[in-house]
């Protein structure tokens, strides 16, 4: 008997959803991720589980998106927030295109528990969002749901684990064994233990996103992708009351979405052939976004930019059309057509479709394995969504600020109480470690013990450590000490963890480095270089990250 029925490659939104689905259907599943959960494409998205508004010419996709939103509200409402959105219009021609959208959106609104699209006067629009340009002639009002993309992936992975799957992060696929045109196993390299391991499997599901072609190549199969990069600019707080969608300098649509404690301005869309690990936002992308949004929010440049993020979309390989015209549907490739049996790959898709994609791929895998199964991923709650949480009562019971408890709830749902219970034996774990977010010590310890983070950056994905205005200036060394304490790391590793996180934050801070962030960085350099002396002590042992390499 093979070690596994299915090996899933890539722990992004799709890969974790596939692993969950396979495990829930009783398939023996291994999820391999070369970095951390949600460390690539999905970790750079805005978290919108879109009702499909951008794809009005693909009605079947709009239907699917709308249904998936309903499913997410059922399984993961604790990590979902609803954002009202305004689309201000500056010209008469904008009005006509809005009509079609309003009709399509409103048809499906009721099932998602949102009102139909409203047309607002400039006065009403500005009452909702005073920073709008007074010269707008009208705006569209509608509502969309946003999910915490990191928590979604982590929860899907944890739920897969709960259902018996093996989840291995920092394990990179290095080969696929094929025998007589059939998948028989995979080889992976554990980047932490530096060991290679071979396991047998019947099926490999390739959910490697931008790396899907590379993964397929190990089996001498082929996946065509159109890679397209996109940048976000992140502002230090919720600078708008509601989301704002506007036409960019080139006629594309861009958005400004309040997101957690920040605001996201995005995105750009540029075809890319570069190594996804090395990408950072460019000055052109930042200016493109700022100038475009400036037309509807004239004060946008006064906002404090804390960082940028750059991600890569693994689009379906439709060429010779603009990025916006490429289908946002997904494709599932059964490589049997290329004479490789047991290999399934994805291209395309959107965050909102990840569960649907997983269902389709798992159906196919089950068919290949000749087992009868039923998908339940749209019915069973993800961990933490089992019940309501009374934030005010918990804040009072544990003597922790309501704000901190509410932020904890937004990540944890019913786990909130479990985490707070830890402070009964360790009252000092109520201490706030990341003050921007905020994050208390108990949650960091809980995450280290139960959510397999290896680095501070992994902790960021799990608890939003260091995502606020100070960009980890003040929490890095405190959290590093906790990680080192829990894992019994050496002082040397404690320092390397600090450098590692500073380096990852700097990746996003540097492209938009200006104004207040220069002050912030002077403080950070004052701490870690000038006083902490890490510039002198670790220079020789620090290995440059892909984006730091000059070559």
């Amino acid at each position, binding site marked *: 008997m093979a070690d596994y029925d299915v090996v899933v490659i890539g722990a992004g939104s799709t890969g974790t959803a596939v692993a969950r689905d396979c495990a829930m259907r009783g398939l023996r599943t291994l999820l391999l991720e070369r970095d951390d959960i949600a460390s690539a494409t999905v970790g750079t998205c805005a978290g919108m589980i879109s009702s499909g508004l951008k794809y009005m010419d693909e009605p079947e996709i709009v239907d699917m998106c709308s249904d998936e939103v309903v499913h997410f509200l059922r399984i993961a409402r604790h990590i979902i927030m609803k954002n009202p959105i305004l689309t201000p219009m500056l010209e008469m021609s904008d009005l006509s295109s809005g009509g079609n959208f309003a009709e399509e959106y409103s048809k499906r609104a009721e099932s998602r528990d949102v009102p139909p699209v409203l047309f607002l006067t400039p006065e009403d629009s500005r009452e909702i969002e005073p920073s709008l340009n007074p010269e707008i002639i009208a705006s569209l009002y509608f509502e969309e749901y946003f999910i915490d993309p990191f928590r979604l992936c982590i929860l899907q992975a944890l739920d897969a684990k709960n259902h018996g799957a093996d989840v291995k992060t920092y394990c990179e696929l290095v080969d696929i064994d094929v025998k007589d045109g059939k998948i028989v196993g995979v080889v992976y390299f554990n980047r932490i233990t530096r060991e290679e391991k071979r396991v047998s499997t019947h099926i490999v599901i390739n959910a490697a996103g931008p790396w899907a072609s590379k993964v397929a190549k190990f089996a001498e199969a082929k996946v065509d992708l159109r890679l397209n990069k996109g940048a976000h600019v992140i502002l230090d707080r919720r600078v708008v009351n509601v989301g704002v969608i506007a036409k960019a300098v080139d006629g594309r649509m861009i958005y400004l979405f309040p997101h957690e404690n920040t605001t996201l301005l995005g995105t750009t869309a540029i075809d890319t052939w570069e190594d996804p690990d090395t990408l950072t936002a460019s000055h052109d992308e930042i200016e493109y976004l700022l100038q475009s949004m400036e037309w509807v929010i004239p004060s946008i440049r006064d906002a404090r930019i804390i960082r940028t993020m750059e991600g890569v979309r693994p689009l379906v390989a439709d060429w010779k059309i603009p990025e916006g015209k490429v289908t946002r549907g997904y494709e599932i490739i059964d490589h049997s057509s290329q004479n490789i049996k047991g290999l399934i790959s994805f291209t395309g898709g959107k965050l909102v479709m990840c569960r649907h994609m997983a269902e389709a791929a798992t159906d196919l895998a089950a068919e290949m394995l000749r087992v009868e199964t039923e998908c339940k991923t749209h019915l069973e709650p993800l961990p933490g969504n089992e019940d309501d949480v009374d934030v005010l009562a918990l804040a009072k019971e544990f003597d922790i600020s309501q704000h901190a408890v509410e932020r904890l709830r937004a990540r944890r749902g019913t786990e909130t109480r479990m985490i707070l219970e830890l402070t009964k034996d360790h009252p*000092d774990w109520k201490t706030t470690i990341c003050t921007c977010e905020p994050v208390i010590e108990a949650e960091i310890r809980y995450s280290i013990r139960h959510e397999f983070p290896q680095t501070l950056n992994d902790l960021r994905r799990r608890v939003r450590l260091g995502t606020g205005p100070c960009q980890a200036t003040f929490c890095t060394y405190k959290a590093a000490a906790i990680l080192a304490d829990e894992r019994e790391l*050496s002082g040397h590793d*404690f320092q390397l963890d600090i450098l590692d996180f500073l380096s990852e934050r700097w990746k996003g801070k540097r*492209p938009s480095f200006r104004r207040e962030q220069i002050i912030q960085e*002077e403080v950070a350099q*004052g701490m*870690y270089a000038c*006083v902490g*002396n890490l510039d002198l002590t670790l220079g020789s042992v620090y290995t440059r990250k892909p984006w730091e390499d000059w070559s």
Partner: protein
Amino acid sequence: MEHEYDLAVIGGGIAGLVAGTIASESGLKTILIRKGRGATSYSSGAIDILGNLVESQFPLSPIDALSTTGVIRSTHPYVILGISENNREVHTELIVQRVKDSVKWLQRNLDGLCAEFTGALDQAMEAITVLGTTKPTCFVQKTMDMGNLVKDHDDSNLLFVDIVGHPDFNGRLAARTYAEFQRYADKPVKRVSSCSITITPFGKPYNISSVEVARHLDHSGLPKEALSELRKNIENTGATHVALPPVMGIESANTVLQEIAELGVHPFEVLSFPPSVPGMRLQQSLDAMYLESGGQMIVGHEVVGYDSADDRVSRIIAKSPHRKMKISATSTILATGKFIGGGIKGTESGFKESIFNLDTVDLNYNPTDDLRPQKLTDRVNVQYEGHAVFSVGVPVDRYFRPINYDSQVVYENVFAAGSVLAGYNYLVEKSGLGVGLTTGYTTGLNAMKYIKEEL
């Protein structure tokens, strides 16, 4: 309202306060205007002179580093100190002399105040930090004096102590880091251990801030329970030295440490990150020194404008939320700091000095007026050479008067001191307060000469 002074100092960190004191103690009518508390209050408790010469492959004593700087660099503020009146050439011995003079002067002035400091220019000091790393510096506050820890490392036994629920210092990790460093540096391994004590300013053992602990100790002294926890741990470990979090009181740290010393150990505080209690001590001591000299100070005021005529600044306008003041002064010292202090601003279109809109330059005096800040950064966040952006500031002549891109003095009666100056990167060379002190001292003297028409 119109006010008349001999000297106006803009900025209240170490550079401004030292310059103001020099002028005021020699009888000049001096006013110091500042926005907030002064970036000096964020400093670690050490006074760096020149901890690391980036061009040198091995550590040098501060004196040697200063001398070497004089030979290899031309735009460093220390080098400008060494320009001789007579032949306008740089003399390294002059640099060292001026640094010595200003250090000696400050040491005398802070004597008996809470930021009293110790150290020597001819010897680098490896001070232990909150991370457990060591950092090359020159002077530290008396409460941070490590005693004979380093000298007698054969039999010293160091106990790191932290406070439960105080996240700014983790004694266990600091101990681990320090012990490894000792082994790595091939020094005889000292015995190193750690423990926690309880100090709860508000009766709760969590979210304890450094400043709260310090104020609590000032107010009520070291709690008996904390002292007995300490005694127990010292007995258990046989500690000879105790490394404490840098929070042992703002006013009363010396007293608190004395009490701990009576347990038969040598206690000292480690270097602090901001928010920094030792930094507050230094700021408070410098404020006291300046006020003692007879200078006037207005806080919470920002300089928002100025009048100039005949290449001189004749008047500056300071504003608070409630009032506007016009201050006429014969000479003005610009000690507004770099980015933290607000002296230099960097936007996507380039860098400018904030008050007089002066030209700005980088380490080697190349113009930065239209450089996007990102261009002066490195891809690697923490590394040996640092980021060029933090050497951006105003270029000056040999009297520390700001000059423009044509090397012309902008205003003959304006002098610049401290980190608003270009030509050095204090973060990597570890020279922040040293440059602040010495350029403050020198511009104070230069402004005096100007006022007495001797310049």
